[in-house]
């Protein structure tokens, strides 16, 4: 009897080798699904053509958008969960609620992750590759500063308990600079370009980004002021170099792996990067760096981290929506999910956490607790602008162009102008 082949197209994005599994898992899922189809005696088989993108997010999103618009978008798109807001609003992606119910495989996904892909009461994506963004400290430098091994070993716990705060980061850094352990401006480094890492600190200062009820964006003046003041103080006290913003990533990592920076905020994937790409090797990384949650703002405050998982989304205009959705149910199988480890991301399935590969990965099994402290960025189409304005303010404060108060006022102004009643200023 005649057998149809349903041809799907899937796009994924990520840095080469470590993330290639995002595309390869789609292909592997096709084999799983075809086996199941054969068993089931279905009259069709599935094929997929994947495109794995390694250029910038901007370019990737623009291409997707034009694809959506012209009807030439792929059936399955892997992108950041925060894209859901815009694309769902525009009707480009399909709600997945029915499918989530239909295939029990999805039930294995950790409950906390569904929040990331839920927007306006519907689920729009199947999450993958969540991560945590740890606060790293250089153990060797701390030792140089006179910290005992115990003191160093206790640090993550002190952070977790809210005992070691951002203010302490400044104090220790100032000591380190004074003691000549690190150069001036090399006490604490955040990421050099715009990105999600700033929000955990904003949250730490009590900031809110989105109103649960209305879905509107929220800007918390005090939190922003606290955060900007923190950075201003860091720059003024020689903890954070005022040239940090716009530094090429390469130089950033080089400085960190050369042991010239005491504290930094980065991601779980950075761990592998330092070991492999910056030539340290896992052993040296292990010896050099310790990781903790991002500190709290006040003693006793809640430390946190931030996660920005990716999501599989389905093009609403796809002719094979059902087949594509079914394929996703095969992607969420533990043997595929576990490949997230390759890029130092965390698995999404509960059952994957039991697999030996995961248990044997010391680093990831050590940081997985962070998911309990995780925060997320809002799913809102105005958030890009919001984030841009805020980042510019950070840059301006660190460069000494404005003081934190002015910075906050400018942000408020800009947000009102750009987003109108889509943003609540509190």
């Amino acid at each position: 009897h005649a057998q149809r082949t349903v041809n799907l197209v899937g796009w994924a994005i990520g840095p080469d080798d470590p993330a290639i599994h995002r595309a390869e898992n789609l292909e592997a899922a096709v084999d799983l699904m075809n086996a199941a189809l054969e068993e089931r005696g279905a009259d069709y088989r599935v094929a997929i053509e994947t495109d794995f993108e390694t250029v910038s997010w901007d370019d990737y999103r623009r291409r997707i958008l034009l694809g959506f618009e012209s009807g030439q978008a792929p059936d399955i798109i892997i992108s950041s969960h925060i894209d859901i807001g815009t694309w769902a609003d525009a009707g480009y992606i399909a709600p997945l609620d029915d499918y989530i119910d239909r295939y029990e495989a999805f039930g294995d996904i950790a409950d906390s992750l569904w929040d990331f892909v839920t927007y306006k009461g519907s689920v729009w994506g199947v999450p993958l590759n969540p991560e945590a963004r740890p606060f790293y400290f250089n153990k060797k430098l701390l030792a140089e500063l006179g910290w005992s091994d115990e003191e160093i070993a206790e640090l993550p716990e002190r952070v977790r308990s809210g005992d070691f705060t951002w203010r302490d980061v400044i104090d220790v850094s100032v000591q380190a600079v004074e003691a000549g352990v690190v150069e001036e401006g090399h006490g604490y480094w955040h990421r050099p370009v715009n990105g999600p890492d700033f929000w955990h600190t904003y949250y730490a200062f009590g900031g809110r980004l989105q109103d649960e009820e209305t879905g509107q964006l929220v800007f918390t003046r005090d939190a922003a002021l606290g955060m900007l003041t923190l950075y201003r103080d860091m720059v003024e006290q020689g903890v954070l170099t005022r040239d940090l913003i716009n530094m090429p990533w390469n130089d950033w990592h080089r400085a960190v792996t050369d042991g010239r920076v005491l504290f930094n905020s980065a991601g779980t994937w950075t761990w592998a990067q330092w070991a492999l790409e910056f030539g340290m090797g896992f052993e040296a990384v292990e010896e050099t760096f310790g990781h903790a949650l991002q500190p709290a703002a006040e003693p006793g405050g809640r430390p946190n981290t931030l996660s920005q998982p990716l999501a599989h989304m389905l093009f609403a205009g796809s002719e094979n929506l059902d087949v594509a959705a079914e394929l996703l149910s095969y992607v969420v199988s533990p043997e595929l999910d576990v490949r997230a480890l390759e890029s130092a991301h965390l698995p999404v399935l509960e059952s994957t956490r039991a697999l030996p590969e995961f248990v044997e990965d010391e680093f990831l099994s050590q940081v997985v607790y962070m998911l309990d402290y995780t925060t997320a960025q809002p799913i809102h189409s105005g958030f890009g602008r919001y984030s841009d304005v805020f980042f510019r303010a950070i840059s301006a404060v660190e460069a000494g162009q404005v003081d934190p108060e002015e910075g906050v006022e400018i942000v408020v102004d800009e947000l009102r102008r750009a987003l109108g009643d889509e943003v609540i200023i509190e």
Partner: protein
Amino acid sequence: MRSGRPRRPEAGESVSTRRAGAHLRTPALFLTPAFVVIALFFVLPAVVTVFLSLTDLSARTMTNPTFVGLANYEYILSSRWTPIVVRNTVLYVTLTLAFNVVMGLALAVSTSLLPDRIGNGLRLLWLLPRITSPVIYVLIWQALLAPAPFGLVGNLMGISRNVVNAHPWPTVILANGLIGASLGMLIFTAAIRSIPRDLFHASAVDGATTWQTVRRVVLPLMRWPIMFVTAYQTLSLLASFEYILLLTNGGPGFYTTEVWSLWAYKEAFQSYVGNVEFGLGAAMAAVLVVVGIVASLVYLRVFRFDELLSRPKVEVN
């Protein structure tokens, strides 16, 4: 000798009407491809852009944008950054242009004074920035300007800061200037080579040193090329932002080195999340188009480019 035979108007009539038709057919044939390209890829997009600028088109509303009138323009006007960005744009265009033209001239003249082989070699070196991919070119800059111990400049001058951040404007202008200089260099060199040898000989015999010949003969003769490069580069620079985007991304701080086209690009194309404001970006692009058109019209008049057109010596087509 006059024949005195009366003219035959009928013949003349029919002949001249046929001629008039044929007369325009040939230019039309030659210009059609250019016209099609212009219509499809300049006029139409410009019109579409103006139209889009009156809508709230964004990634979210792409399927059903709504008409918002001049709201986007009001938004631009009401922005506190508009004056700064305008000032930046003027600064960027004039300084880079000046660097381009002066450096282009200096390079063209000086390489022309050297033996051909050496001159060609130097010109190739100066062309390298233009033919190198922008990302690589910026990579080089960042590398050389990085803080010690990575950056050469930092190492040599003992600056521990990242020079791009410490001196954003000189960096932006130099980085763009080096690229633009090569266009001027090529065109000016070609212009120098087209000056008859006799003029150089005459000038030498008249008692001029090489420098005097350059100043009194060569430079004045480069009027057209200089004007062309000035006009062309002004427009190129108005629309260019790639290197600023990669070098400073408009920073550091609030809009320190942000120029209009970069602003427009960011509004229309760059966003941390999926939503981008095409409508607003289109309004900004439309402003740029208008500025560019005005600038080129001014150049056309001031530089009297119409003098470059001479009456064709063949009157039939």
